[in-house]
């Protein structure tokens, strides 16, 4: 009896900790259902009549919103699909053939992801300005793909190393072409790696602001861009706009980590630590 009580208490404590970490987010979501005067009330109101006006406003009256949301989706999905595909080929090569310089290339790939954003984007910006590629969807997608490659290669190489070469050999002996082996024999076995690479790169590109701001422009702007640039109206910060936009925007990443929680660890560590928590 006292044993179950202790377990209950323990779980209650854990829930409270989780809720404390979530509370700032909860406050923003709550605020998105408030009217303008309720948001700016002092002291802040916990009890109020909820309204959907902010969301209606966003979808109906804010012309930029659908463009930005569309851009966010198109940029992240296309870039990551390209990145995961080419990374899978490269990771297969690194894992199976181990060409000279594999370690160096893996190092080089990783080091870009370790560099502060402005240092990465500065030369690319000069290049894009010189070639007139700024504010172009394809140019943005290719850059994001490049930036998603290191992570994908690392994560997929880890998974491919775990697939026994016996499968390749059997395939070869039975007369399968390399294409057959790569896509029919090996690919299905690293599905978890593909999912993890896909999800965590998407979260990254989805959340990315600086690159979009610097090498993008009016036609390629995504939601973080809108948040940073368009948050001001009527001389002050437009909190109703911010809270509604933020609440919608953070939904996909949160859903991702709920449904793909077993990939969270591998996703947050470049594929270097595996397992579930």
């Amino acid at each position, binding site marked *: 009896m006292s044993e179950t009580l202790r377990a209950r208490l323990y*779980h209650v*404590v*854990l829930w409270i*900790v*989780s*809720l404390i*970490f*979530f509370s*700032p*987010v909860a*406050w923003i979501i709550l605020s998105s259902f408030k009217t303008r005067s309720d948001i700016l*009330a002092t*002291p*802040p109101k916990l009890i109020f009549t909820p309204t959907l006006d902010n969301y209606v406003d966003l979808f109906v009256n804010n012309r930029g919103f659908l463009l930005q949301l569309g851009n966010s989706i198109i940029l992240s999905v296309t870039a990551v699909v390209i990145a995961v595909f*080419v990374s899978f*080929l*490269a990771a297969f*090569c690194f894992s199976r*053939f181990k*060409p000279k310089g594999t370690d160096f290339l893996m*190092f080089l*790939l*990783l*080091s870009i992801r*370790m*560099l*502060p*954003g*402005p*240092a990465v984007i*500065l*030369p*690319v*910006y000069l*290049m894009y300005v010189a070639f007139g590629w700024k504010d172009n969807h394809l140019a943005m997608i*290719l850059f994001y793909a*490049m930036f998603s*490659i290191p992570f994908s290669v690392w994560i997929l190489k880890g998974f491919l190393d775990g697939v026994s070469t016996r499968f390749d050999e059997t395939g070869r002996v039975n007369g399968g072409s390399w294409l057959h082996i790569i896509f029919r024999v090996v690919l299905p076995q690293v599905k978890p790696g593909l999912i993890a690479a896909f999800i965590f790169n998407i*979260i990254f590109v*989805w*959340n990315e*602001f*600086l690159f979009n701001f610097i090498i993008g422009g009016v036609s390629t702007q995504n939601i*973080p861009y809108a*948040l*940073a640039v368009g948050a001001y109206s009527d001389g002050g910060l437009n909190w109703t706009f*911010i*809270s509604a*936009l*933020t609440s919608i*925007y*953070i939904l996909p990443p*949160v859903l*991702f980590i*709920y449904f793909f*929680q077993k990939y969270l660890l591998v996703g947050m*560590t470049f594929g*270097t*630590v595996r397992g579930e*928590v």
Partner: protein
Amino acid sequence: MASSPGQSAFKDNRRVIIFALLAPVLAFFIVFNTIPTLWLLGLSFHKFSLLSGMPPEFFGFRNFQDIFRNRNGIWGDLGRTFTFVGVGVLVQTTLGILLGFLFWGSKDMPGRRLALTLLFTPMVLTPVATGTFFRFIYDPTFGVLNALVGWMSPTGTIDFLGNPQIAFWAVLAVDCWMWTPFMTLMTLAALGSVPKAELEAAEIDRLSWPKRVSLVIWHHGKFILMLGILLRTIDSFKTLDLIIPMTKGGPGQTTRLVAVELNKQSFESFNMGWSSAYSVLLLLISIAMTSMFIFILNRRRKGR
């Protein structure tokens, strides 16, 4: 066994396959990384501003000298950055480990998945959105935090992001809120890597808790934990998105970290030569950190 002509055909074939598999990634890298990086290296020795409209002019090491000699230059930024990284990572690691131990053995908790999602939410949020809404929470007139502080000690409102003495710590607190869950995650992974049999043996031997941690858990978990700390160090060195919406490096320069300064010089002042030199310096630092990361990773592999 294949005959020798077959083998050599396989070898040629092999080279073609390697090239074909690597080509797309290499192409991406040469176009979007190698060429730009070489360009950056070259520019760092030139005087070049996008505003003046003049072509780049060879400058020798003058950009580097400017960076180090300037009174408000790199030392202040580096100092703030390393304080930010050092204090931040220390707090996140300590809290993360505590929470990790707390959540250890919660496998049969009702709604565990949802609770963990709520706990891990901060680290997958859009940093720009986080920064913006923390500005709302920190706001001196209608922010919720001031209302909470006001309840406890009604000494007047605190301008968290406007007060030069507090702003840095207020920003750091948000960073800690975002990334403590990451260290919790790493701690849980480290604890998960400890074999159950050894833990049971330690329990049977009635080892004291400090001994259990130092003899059993530390031995298995140390590399994962160290990787976590290193990843966090590297990531927090890059912090930028979070600061732009909150303070833009102000008030004064109190929250101006290296990435913030580089961003300002390159994309607000368009001082490209100077910024290239600054980027080269940051590149060296990040290469050093990447090497450390790989070093620890290799030790872990050998340690097994």
